[in-house]
Every structure is written in structure tokens, then in C-alpha cells.
């Protein structure tokens, strides 16, 4: 049982972390076996079992935290710790995306021009890749994956930009409704945010299908396909995660977990949602437009 030690809060022991470790362990072993063309129980089934354990862990762990929060066991200090935890987690996510943006910029600014003989890459071009003229988009001098077309920025990606930007507005309206204590309006705006996120994902899926079926733009389309799908793919996963989090928060709002002045769970998810929004703006500019 948890103890409130004097002015401090110290939680009781928990079995959820070790459950999470087992889930993570099973997931990655299953995935690695699957990648290595393994079949049978230790490949995909193990991975899905691991993911199921992770989901189970999150239900249990967050459930415990929510129950403790609802009965008022957390003081201001715990709240601040949670806030800091979420902020620094988002910062780590920013750095994760920075690695892939870095790869995109490096390829466009350095490696593709160098292979094409610019800068100090003259000999590389002469001996290894003669006849290759640098351009963007490209799948490299080896024409890896065959010729492809790109997604035009001002169609679906523009729609998706507007969808995500609007969702940033609707979640702010939801927040204002929460602070004003208008639950109906809160639930409506939150539902609108989730709907906009779902529409974004639907269009993103449409775009992927279009790319694979008609444009021959795949993950294997050289450096353009690699950076395009890694950046948009990881972003899409984050939107999916964010939408799931928003859905959970919707149910928590419906159950009345949040008060006008105490609703960190809502704010954390809102921060996360703004973060995926900002990443998308970077994607829209650097992956689609430029």
C-alpha cells in the first residue's frame, strides 16, 4: 500500500515494471525472429504476445496511478514530477525524430551531391558512379527500387496539414471547456480532435496505398523512399499512439476524472498531441514541399 510519508508521497512496490520488462523482452525477441525469417511460435506470435503483455501492463500501471490520483493521494510535488517526466519524455522524442531529419538533411545536402561529383566528391563520381547527376528526389545512382513518382505536396499532405492544425485548435477548445467545467463541450471538442486525428490517419493510409500501388514509391526506393517512409511512418505511429491516448482521455473525461484545476492526464496528452503536430509541420515542409 502506498504511503504518504509526512509531506511526501512514496508509492508502494509494484509488479508492473517487471511485467513490462517481460512484455518488452518477448516483443523484441519475437520481432527479431520474425525479421530473421523465423516461423512458428517464437516469431510473430511471441511478438504479439509481448505487445499484449505491454498493453496489459499499461492498463494495470496507469490504472493504479489513476486510482491513486482520484482518491487524492498525490500532492503538488507529485504533480510536478509527472509534468517534468512528460516534458523530458517529449524532448527525448524530439531527439529521436532529429536523427531521421538529420539523415534527410545529410542525404540532401551532402551524400547525394557528393556521389554526383560535387564538392570533394569528384573522384567518387568518376570512378564509382559515372554519369550520375545529383537531384532530389532520387533513389541513388543504383536506381534502387526502380523509378518512382512522389506524393504531390499540395493535395493530400496539405489536407492532412489542415486536419492536424485544426486538431491542435480543437484540443485547445476542449482544454478551455475543461477549465470552465463544461463537460459536454469538453467531450465534443475532444471527440472532434480524435476524429480529425483519425481522418489524418485515414488519408495517410490512402497516401501510402497510392504510393505503393501507383507511384512505385516504397520503403526500398533508395534514399528518398527510406527517408520518406521512415519519417512519415514514425510520425504516423505517434499520431496513432496520440489518438489512442486521446480516446482514453475521452473516457476518463466522461467518467469525471478531471477537475477544472487538476487534470494533468489531459494536459500530458495535449502536449503530446501538439508535439506530433509540430513534427508534422517539419515533415510537410522538408519532406513534401521542399
Amino acid at each position, binding site marked *: 500500500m502506498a504511503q504518504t510519508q509526512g509531506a511526501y508521497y512514496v508509492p508502494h*512496490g509494484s509488479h508492473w515494471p517487471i511485467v513490462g520488462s517481460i512484455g518488452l523482452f518477448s516483443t523484441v525477441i519475437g520481432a527479431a525472429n520474425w525479421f530473421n525469417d523465423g516461423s512458428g511460435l517464437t516469431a510473430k506470435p511471441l511478438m504479439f504476445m509481448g505487445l499484449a503483455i505491454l498493453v496489459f501492463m499499461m492498463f494495470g500501471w496507469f490504472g493504479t496511478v489513476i486510482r491513486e490520483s482520484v482518491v487524492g493521494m498525490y500532492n503538488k510535488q507529485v504533480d510536478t514530477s509527472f509534468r517534468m517526466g512528460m516534458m523530458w519524455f517529449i524532448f527525448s522524442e524530439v531527439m529521436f525524430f532529429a536523427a531521421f531529419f538529420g539523415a534527410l538533411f545529410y542525404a540532401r545536402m551532402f551524400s547525394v551531391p557528393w556521389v554526383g561529383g560535387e564538392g570533394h566528391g569528384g573522384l567518387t563520381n568518376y570512378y564509382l558512379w559515372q554519369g550520375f547527376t545529383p537531384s532530389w528526389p532520387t533513389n541513388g545512382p543504383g536506381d534502387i527500387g526502380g523509378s518512382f513518382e512522389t506524393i504531390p505536396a499540395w493535395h493530400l499532405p496539405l489536407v492532412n496539414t489542415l486536419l492536424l492544425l485544426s486538431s491542435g485548435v480543437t484540443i485547445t477548445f476542449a482544454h478551455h471547456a475543461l477549465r470552465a467545467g463544461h463537460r459536454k463541450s469538453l467531450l465534443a471538442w475532444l471527440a472532434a480532435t480524435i476524429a480529425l486525428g483519425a481522418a489524418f490517419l485515414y488519408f495517410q493510409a490512402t497516401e501510402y496505398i497510392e504510393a505503393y500501388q501507383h507511384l512505385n514509391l516504397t520503403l526500398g526506393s533508395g534514399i528518398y523512399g527510406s527517408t520518406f517512409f521512415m519519417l512519415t511512418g514514425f510520425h504516423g505511429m505517434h499520431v496513432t499512439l496520440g489518438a489512442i491516448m486521446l480516446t482514453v482521455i475521452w473516457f476518463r473525461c466522461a467518467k469525471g476524472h478531471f477537475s477544472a484545476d487538476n487534470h494533468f492526464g489531459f494536459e500530458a496528452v495535449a502536449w503530446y498531441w501538439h508535439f506530433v503536430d509540430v513534427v508534422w509541420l517539419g515533415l510537410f515542409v522538408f519532406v513534401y514541399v521542399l
Partner: protein
Amino acid sequence: MAHAAVHDTHHDAHDHKPQGFLHRWLFTTNHKDIGTLYLVFSMLMFFVGGSMAMIIRAELFEPGMQLVRPEFFNEMTSVHALVMIFGAVMPAFVGLGNWMIPMQIGAPDMALPRMNNWSFWILPFAFTLLLSSLFMPGAGPQGGWTLYPPLSLQGGNSVAFVIFAIHMMGISSIMGAINIIATILNMRAPGMDLLKMPIFVWSWLITAFLLIAVMPVLAGAVTMLLTDKYFGTSFFNAAGGGDPVMYQHIFWFFGHPEVYIMILPAFGIVSEIIPTFARKPLFGYQAMIYAIASIAFLSFIVWAHHMFTVGMPLGGELYFMYATMLIAIPTGVKVFNWVTTMWEGSMTFETPMLFAIAFVILFTIGGFSGLMLAIVPADFQYHDTYFVVAHFHYVLVTGAIFAIMASVYYWLPKWCGNMYSERWGKIHFWMSVISVNVLFFPQHFLGLAGMPRRIPDYNVAFADFNMISSIGGFWFGASQLLFVGVVIHAVYFSKSRAQARVWEGARGLEWTVPSPAPHHTFSEPPVIDNSQLAHGDVSH
């Protein structure tokens, strides 16, 4: 759960030690238990990685192929590094941070105690995964700990397992770092201002920031390796417009801050120990903080000095050379301040102080060889030779590891309540400090003479120094068994009880609680008495 809040507030003073061995260690949310887990795990990995080093030195004892296959030798150099970096040094510092930071800032525990448990309990699984790769078809990683493509992608099934192991270590490190930052910024006792914090806490605050900033970048880099191998992407394939050198840039953007992640807490430890045994406040407390922060900042903008020979534009080489040399300035400030702290102090030479002084001298040697490596034209000669091996083992073994050992001797009496054997501690110190120099100093000469690193066989011209180095290696390895002996003796058998203030000259909150420290310290915020602090008002 509902009545727990009301109910348990009445039991403030009780020691809530959970019952049962497994229950206690698997489910614990106590920073001291988790710190102990980290430290024990680190010790275990130190010997796992150490035994790999013994295999390496045994093979290199004489020229020619003696004991192992070249593939296995390459696995040993790769996994030795991964185990020592992610399994021994980093968890040791996190363990020390867990134990000491809450006690040093007057907090009841870490800010996020359940996540603290998860940070640790990911590690045994991650290392099971990493070490199991050695037994897989196609063998374990053979491309070095840096996993440079295309070599690293030519491995067998183990590639995916090694990459996932690194992902798990990264998750663990990020959660640990978030916890430490939240603890330091949010859990300080009233009156424990930022500029009164012990320097170890400061060093960890900055280290934690580095961890959160760069571990995700490593995750990104190895994820790209994974997709290049298994999903047909072309990040590191020039034919597709990518570039293997791009991996090196992304990797070292992580890798150079990582190097400082492994040394900044060591700076903090040494800055705690030297004032205690010199019986003087740390010279230039704020300058020390600024120096750590400057080193951390510079670590982000010097990464390509690890790849001078890869074929960068001249402007890039020059920039990275000069930026790297700048690091010598804040590092010089630190060394100067350690020496000046000792100046005219009334010094005694207990084991922690011996290790700390050895740190100052030997780390400085490692720093100087680093300065040599920073010079581009010189690096063309040194690159990928044993000179580099000597350099980073001076900063990591006689730097990071010596600081960890110093801290264990320094704080062990506070942890277990018993004094270690000073006699055997000193024997351990002298055996280590002599053997480690026999082990690594000749490697400078080997490198300058041109012996490449990560090679199982070598020209007979290198025979003598290699044999000396191997003898030093076995000697150093065996000496560490003494360390285990001293620790086990102190924890379980020592009859000599430690006082609350274990060392006469020690200052800081951790010395105001009894030894051993109770399971829960500071169930209420302690009143900060400035005269008891190491820093802050006392230094003005």
C-alpha cells in the same frame, strides 16, 4: 487502495521493508534498493566484460593465432565494449545517483519511484539479449561497438537481437535520466538551493540532460541499421543515394556526448572526495559547475573528431579540430581546481582519496592523449591504432572506473553501516594502479609504432609491449577480485561499525543520517543547516 491514503499517513516513522526476497527486489520502489540492484548488476557486468578483455589480452600475448578464431576475437572486442559501456559504467553511475542523490538533496526518494524500478529491470533482459547473440547462428556482433555499416550489417541473425538490446538499454537510460532530472529539480528539501547542491548532484543533472538528448539519436541510428538490413532501405547504401559515413555522423552525435556521460559523474565523485580528505571546501565550486556545463555543451559540436580519416571536407576537419581542443579549457579548469583544493589541505590518504588522486593524474594523461588525437594531421597517424585504445582506456578505466571504485569505498560505510578493511582497500588500490599502467601505458607505444586496434594477430615487432600489456591485463583483472572480497567482507563480515559522519572532513546531508542509512530517509523535509553543507554559504 482508497483507504490507503488516509490510513498510512499515520505510519510515518515505520520502516516499510517488504517481505520476501523476490518481492523486495523485483517490486521495489525504494531508491536505495534500486541503487543496490544497479551497483550489483554493474559489478557482474564488469566481470563479464572483464573476462572478454582477458580473452583479448590472452590472444594478444604473443604474435600469431593462439587461442581463438579471428571471428570470435572480433566478437570479444565488440561485446567487451558494449558490456563495459552500457552494462558496467553507466549502470554504476545510475546506481550511485540512485543511492546518493535523494540523500544529498534531502529527498525521501526519487521523483518517479515505479519508473525507477522499470529503468533497472529492463537491463538484465537487455543484456541477456545482447549476450545470447554470441551463441546465435552466424555468431554475435563483430563490427565493433560502433556498429558501423556496411560491416555490421553483414552479420547473421544476431544483428536484430543486438539492435533491440541497444534499444532496450536506451529506454532504460532515458527513463533513468528523466527520473534523475525530475528528482533534482523537484525534490530538493526547502533551502537546498541549486547553488548549494553537492557537485555530484550537479554533475548528474547535466549528465541526465545529455542522456535524454542523445540516447534517442542512437536509437534512431540503429533503427536505420535495422531497416537497411531487413526492410530494404538505403540510408547507408551509396547506390541508393545514402552514405555509410552518414551513420558515423549520426552515431558520433550520440557517441561523443556518451563519452562525457561516462565521465561527468566521475568528475562529480572526485569533487566530493578530494575536499573531504583535504579537509578544505572545493576550490571554485561554481567554476566547477560552469566547467561541467561547458564540457557538456561542447560535447554536442565535436563529434566528427572520431572520423577524421573518413574523408571529410578540409573545413570540417579544421572546425572539428579546433572545437575539440576547446574542451581542454574547461577540463583544465577542473584539474586545476582539484589540485588547488588539495593545496595546503591537511590531507590523509584513505582508499577513496588514493583512487581520487590517481584519477586526477591518470585521467589527465588520458586527456592529454586525447588532445594529441584531436590534431587532425597527427590523428591521420594515430587513427584506429592502439594509441586510441590506450587513450580511451585511460579515461574510462583510470577515469570512470577508478572514480566508481573511489565512490564505493567512500560511500560503502554509509550504505552497509560497516567499515571496509582499509588495509585490503589500499592493497587493492596499489595493485590496480600499478597493473593498469602496465596494462595500458605500453599501448601508447604500440599505437605510435602503428599497431592497429581490433586485430587478433600482429607483426612480431610489437611482441614485447604486447606481452607486457597482457601481463598487466591479467594482473589488473585478478586485482579486481580483491575489490569483490573487500566489498563482501565489509557488507557481511566487518565488525567495525561506521559512524553517521564516516569521514572526519565530510560535509553534506548524506552524513547527517545514520550509517547504515535507514530504508527511508527524510520522511519529512530536513532543515538545511548551511554549516553542514559542502557548498553554498560556507564557501563565501
